């Protein structure tokens, strides 16, 4: 790609210093987000997907957390180096964020209008009357019925889907260049989730912003992303465009994730479950961090961590044995053995 990246994350490391030891939540992550695209970040709980986004926003609580190394380049500035004062100008203005739980991220004692107006007045040179007008306008844009009335309501008077719309209205009120959405639909019902995803897609087009979509749901990823980074244990293990990822997953973890979810249009007798569970970040295995669960792991996998290497044009994978996986896929075999009922 020749385009200039909007955000460029290079070798980002965010560690937490706890009493039990150092938690390497994000341990050397690289990715880029281009203008107008949606980058999906997918992974299971504890893989570091949320911490990378908090690092971009510089919202990692310190102590115990600290950005240990790396660069986050945004419009010619390294966000890890600038002062808090400068960061405050960017946060909520150029980069804004929506969270999973819309109830806890809205202040219950202020009306939704007050909260949106606060954001607008903080970043734009407008008076309260004008800000209120803009807030009502935003609420209308995110599809809230009767925005003139809703603007004076409190968060508890709104349903979950409405609250998430308010969050989106607030996040977009200052025309951000990047919207970070951390599991924005996880707490919502499927029919409401469909509404919110549709809204985000249409707003992305009309605003021309970039979105970083963090989720554990491959369905959501397939729906909204242009490119995807799959994370496991603090690292990106696969990184490519969305069609290639679903057509030709090269990392055994990605392959396992895709085959462990049942499909609506295909019947299988048994799901291909990845054995075991995510290792504790206090005690990652030596070598490839997936080696405790990987059916292909052998020799080198236990000694040396594989690099994120370009397996095909624009398709990066962190695995010593991705070529062997290719062969297995060609033969149409399942790679995850069934443990079944133990006798």
């Amino acid at each position, binding site marked *: 790609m020749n385009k200039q990246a909007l955000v460029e994350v290079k070798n980002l490391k965010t560690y937490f210093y706890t009493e039990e030891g150092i938690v390497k939540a994000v341990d050397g992550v690289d990715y880029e987000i281009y203008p107008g695209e949606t980058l999906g970040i997918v992974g*299971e*709980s504890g893989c570091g997907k949320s911490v990378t986004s908090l690092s971009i926003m510089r919202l990692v609580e310190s102590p115990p957390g600290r950005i240990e190394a790396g660069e986050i380049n945004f419009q010619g500035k390294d966000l890890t180096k600038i002062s808090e004062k400068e960061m405050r100008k960017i946060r909520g203005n150029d980069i804004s964020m929506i969270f999973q739980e819309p109830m806890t991220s809205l202040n219950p004692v202020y009306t939704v209008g007050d909260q949106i107006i606060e954001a607008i007045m903080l970043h734009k040179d407008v008076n309260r009357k004008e800000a209120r007008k803009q807030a009502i306008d935003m609420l209308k844009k995110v599809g809230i019925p009767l925005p003139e009335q809703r603007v004076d309501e409190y968060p508890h008077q709104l*349903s979950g*889907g*409405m609250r998430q719309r308010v969050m989106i209205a607030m996040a977009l009120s200052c025309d951000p260049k990047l919207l970070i959405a951390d599991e924005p639909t996880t707490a919502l*019902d*499927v*029919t*409401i*989730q*469909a*509404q919110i*995803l*549709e809204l985000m897609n249409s707003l992305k087009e009309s605003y021309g912003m970039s979105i970083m979509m963090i989720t*554990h*749901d*491959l*369905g*959501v*990823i*397939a*729906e909204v*992303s242009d490119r995807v980074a799959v994370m496991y244990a603090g690292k990106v293990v696969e990184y490519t465009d*969305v*069609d290639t990822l*679903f057509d030709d997953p090269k990392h055994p973890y990605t392959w*396992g*994730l*895709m085959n*462990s*979810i*049942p*499909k*609506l*249009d295909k019947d*299988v007798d*048994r*799901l*291909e*479950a*990845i*054995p075991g*569970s*995510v290792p504790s970040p206090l005690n990652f295995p030596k070598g490839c961090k997936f080696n405790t*669960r990987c059916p292909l792991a052998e020799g080198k996998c236990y000694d040396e961590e594989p690099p994120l290497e370009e397996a095909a044009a624009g398709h990066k994978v962190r695995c010593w044995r991705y070529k062997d996986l290719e062969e297995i896929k060609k033969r149409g075999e399942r790679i995850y053995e*069934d*443990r*079944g*009922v*133990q*006798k």
Partner: protein
Amino acid sequence: MAENLLEVKNLKKYFPVKAGIFKKTVAHVKAVDDISFAVKEGETLGLVGESGCGKSTTGRTILRLLEATAGEVIFEGKSVMDLDKKAMRAIRRDMQIIFQDPYASLNPRMTVADIVGEPLDIHKLAKNKKERNEKVREILENVGLGAEYMHRYPHEFSGGQRQRIGVARALAVDPKLIIADEPVSALDVSVQAQVVNLLQDLQKEYGLTYLFIAHDLSVVKHISDRVAVMYLGKIVELTDKHELYSNPKHPYTQSLLSAIPEADPKKKKNRIVLEGDVPSPVDPPSGCRFHPRCPKAFEPCSVKEPEFKEYGDGHFAACHLLDK
């Protein structure tokens, strides 16, 4: 044709809404409002719906963890609604439940051996301590946990392992029916598959019957034989899973199916995006409860409640459109 193990007839569960200093009942939340279905021996019936549709309340009312407002639950030909406490306890040996949250449903002060062994004690299924421990060990191995875990506490386990302990506890008394209330929704994707596989294996091994309650339609389709779709306290459609997914008759089922984001970026679906939110069960809409959100609603929908009836070959639905 297999026998009905469980029959639910016109089941209702209303929760009173109290207000004022005298706690006068001012209204009712109609969580489950007149539903009927049957579960055949050895099958898995999936019960799906969005939050607040009454699916969990249904499960709990069947086990009489909540007392029903009206209706009947018949288990193996016997009504369980008028059994006294002692008789009910005896019958719970055959009907067990697995809960959603593996963190909240295990007592943190009990070891795994005690958690799994407690039902054995209650139903006096082990003669002495040695026999009890032997049984616990066997059950734990069946759910994929080694005997070395017996003397550990719940906090030492991951979510997936805890859910295995929950399954082991339900299995301990050798039940016929297991009501699984969102057993995998709190788990990570890769671990979900492990627990789903385990439930299927155990079903084969022990000939279990499941009532599988979940909001995730793909998981429900995978594990169930037949599926019932609930909306606001009512069952709107019930049929064989293949029929339901290939030929959904109720507009709610259709939109629900189209709303699921599928893990296939090339598939551009004709999505039916529903307007608005689920209405409150305190004051449900008149006529068909789905009519304010239904893209196909016409005159009778807001006035008359559609009847839940069969439209050929075990395909039940409640919608006026089908009688047009």
